[in-house]
């Protein structure tokens, strides 16, 4: 597989939110406002790429040589959680401007299935280092794209007359379904 395929596949065809169902809680939680959605998207891109790379290193240089592959779940989550917290503290102190932009979204990512799931998927696919990097970026961009698109749609839905029982999350999910359906159109791309 070429890098281009990985990139397009990750962003569109196997979009982590709409096709892989990963990271749905913040997808619905933070998509009510465009502003929040953008912040969340940026934070996910940042953390997912970093986490993808670090977990790959952990896997390739520690878990495999010591035959501890079965510990990957616990090892990954520990590393991701620590990483997120570290990055948060680092940004708060060193780059307050950036922290103001995405810092508050970082804790939300600790338990974001998208980050963790993408790392597991990367390992399952037995990608090499560079491909892991590309794949992680692709997934992250795909997440951001879907989130921002969805937030745009939801801001519009507020103006529509929605039947009472269908309001809010309910219509949000149906909308997500339709958005997911449009992403089906990308299936033929690779």
């Amino acid at each position, binding site marked *: 597989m070429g890098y281009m395929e990985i990139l397009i596949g990750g962003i569109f065809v196997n979009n982590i939110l709409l096709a892989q169902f990963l990271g749905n809680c913040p997808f619905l939680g933070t998509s009510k406002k465009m502003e929040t959605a953008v912040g969340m998207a940026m934070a996910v891109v940042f953390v997912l790429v970093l986490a993808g790379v670090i977990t790959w290193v952990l896997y390739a240089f520690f878990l495999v040589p010591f035959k501890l592959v079965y510990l990957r779940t616990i090892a990954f989550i520990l590393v991701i*959680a620590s990483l997120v917290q570290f990055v948060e503290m*680092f940004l708060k102190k060193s780059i307050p401007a950036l922290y103001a932009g995405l810092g508050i979204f970082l*804790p939300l990512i600790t338990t974001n299935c998208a980050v963790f799931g993408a790392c597991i998927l990367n390992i399952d696919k037995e990608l090499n280092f560079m491909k892991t990097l590309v794949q992680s970026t692709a997934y992250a961009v795909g997440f951001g794209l879907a989130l921002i698109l969805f937030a745009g749609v939801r801001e519009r839905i507020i103006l529509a007359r929605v039947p009472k029982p269908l309001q809010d999350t309910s219509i949000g999910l149906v909308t997500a379904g339709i958005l997911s359906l449009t992403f089906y159109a990308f299936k033929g791309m690779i």
Partner: protein
Amino acid sequence: MLEAILFMLGLGAGCGAVLSAASKVFYVYEDPRIAIVEGHTAAANCGGCGYAGCSAAAVAVVAGEAPPSVCIVAGPETTANIASVMGVDPGTAEPLLSYNTCDGGDRADNKFHYMGIGSCQALSSLYGGQRECPIGCLGLGDCVRACAFDALIIGSHGYPVVNEHKCVGCGACEKVCPKDIMEIKTMSQRLLHLNQFDDRIAPCQQTCPAEIDIPKYIMQIKHGDYEGAVNTIRERNPLLLSCGRVCPHPCEVKCRRGLEDQAVSINQLKRFVADHEMNSGSRLPVSVAPSTGKKAAVIGGGPAGLSCAFFLRRLGHDVTIFDDNPKLGGMIRYGIPEYRLPKEVLAWETQGILDLGVEHKPNVKLGRDFDIGALIASGFDTVFLGIGAWKDYTLGVEGENLKGCYTGINFLTNFATWQQEKPNDPRPFVGQKCVVIGGGNTAVDCVRTLVRLGAEEVSIVYRRTRTEMPANEVEIVAAEHEGINFVFLAAPTKVIEDEDGNATGLEYLKMELGEPDDSGRRRPVPIEGSETVLEIDMLITAIGQGPDVFFKEENKMLDADLKLTRWSTIDCEDEIALQASIPYIFTGGDSATGADLVVSAIGAGRRAARSIHMYLAGEDLTPPEKTLFTNNIPESIFDSVPGIVKEKRTPMPELPVDERIKSFVEADLVITEKDALYESSRCLNCCIYCYNPDNTT
């Protein structure tokens, strides 16, 4: 096995060490409460609350933007914990509630037919909406859609209705409403609100010195919700029983109904629900905000002091009332006679205020028993001076200090004290041919009291005509019915004495009306050589009162800095903020304005409580620029009110004259429930622009 243990050991130690090091190296100060609040949240970082993670939610809670119940995953215990971190007692933490401030709805006319997107936001961007009223509800329900708790519906009349049981005060509706119709407030915030130029309020509410939401309580009466009506009144007036009896109801003057037939009998409706509560045998609960730990001293237990104490207590402060008299009520206990306000009723009312946790120290007088410096030294953070206006003005004519000459307040107070507290003492002197000088309520109270005490001939001497008499119309009418002799256009010049120094006659000059003066009343001009003598054996001068500020002369250090006006009222730069020249001293009522209405004193008490509350919180006391205060919103004053069917106003029931002049039994009676329902249905439920011509709501 060993490898696994070592690996995890290393990983755990590594992560732990890096994080601990990082938390030292990258330490940044933040409000410690954020960490504690975050500790109480579910920490699932699920984003379900709409904030970006638990720490963001915690920041919002500490900043006061999110309620303690922000975490949707955690249960009520978490809410309680967060509430306690934020310094609000979870049990009594004041809930935020949503209120709709416009109930015009469909009755407001439309300018154009709107067929666009079903959203208030969209509609308001089109000439501010389709309603003729620029400030009213658009009715397309953005707030309903914004509410995640099903607490709002658009009711049958086209405006949102809040379900208080479901509302959590999240504020979503307030944020989304383009017309600022929806308000999210705690009870405290509601108590602090002053009428504003852009409020949606009827002319009567604009006029009422206490700013009572009159149309709301009348509608509640109409729907049989008497308790609701009492609570509505208590948001602005703690003395509804007293006010319902003695208030001259300036509101009724501005009642739109009065333009077409007769004004709604607003005050009688107030008295009806107030009596209904008292006669029900139990008191309605009054909410009190969590304690703030601040102490306020209220000097004077009259209407202003009671009102100020009541609102300060409801705002969560510890209040102590210091009063010269043995019982609470001030001028309405010792000035207003029993037949107008039975003291049993007043006692029931003041007890309700004390029951909220207000302390009462009777028989202590400022300047005689204590001074303000001592109060501050003993831990009071602030002082309210509600000392009233107890010092009668004097005529300044020869002989006014003779035997048989009294002053109005002095006479009334002496009599009331005897009647209420020392019935076994000899009765104060009452003459047979009595003359009372003055045209105000005090004068009328004096004559009606004298009649009841068996004086044969009682006259009022007033230097202008009946139209100019400042006393309440009902009182004058009642006095006429009770056989009082009125001498108008008479200016006393001298009191004539006999050899024993008793007053035997009053000499006066006849007057005629000249050009109108500044107050719009025609100035009386004496007619030369028209001296006339009236035979008397008792004279009462009741020509007005001012505050008794003798405590200033005691010259205690702090009190000396207190500035007074030339009418010896306490000087406050801003009559809305009511802060005296010493910042922690506030005033209100007669002591700030000179003798005025009970309801004005009640309104001032609340304004002072508001200022004190803000002063204690370190906030700026300047009232908002749009504060209405005694003004009217110009566009709300109509010339005519088309579309109403004329209906008669309910007359006030009263005791027959021959029965009432024999005793001090209450003369004015309460209207029946049937009449109350009829009268309430006459209310047009006005707002600024619209009203209900057809009485449907």
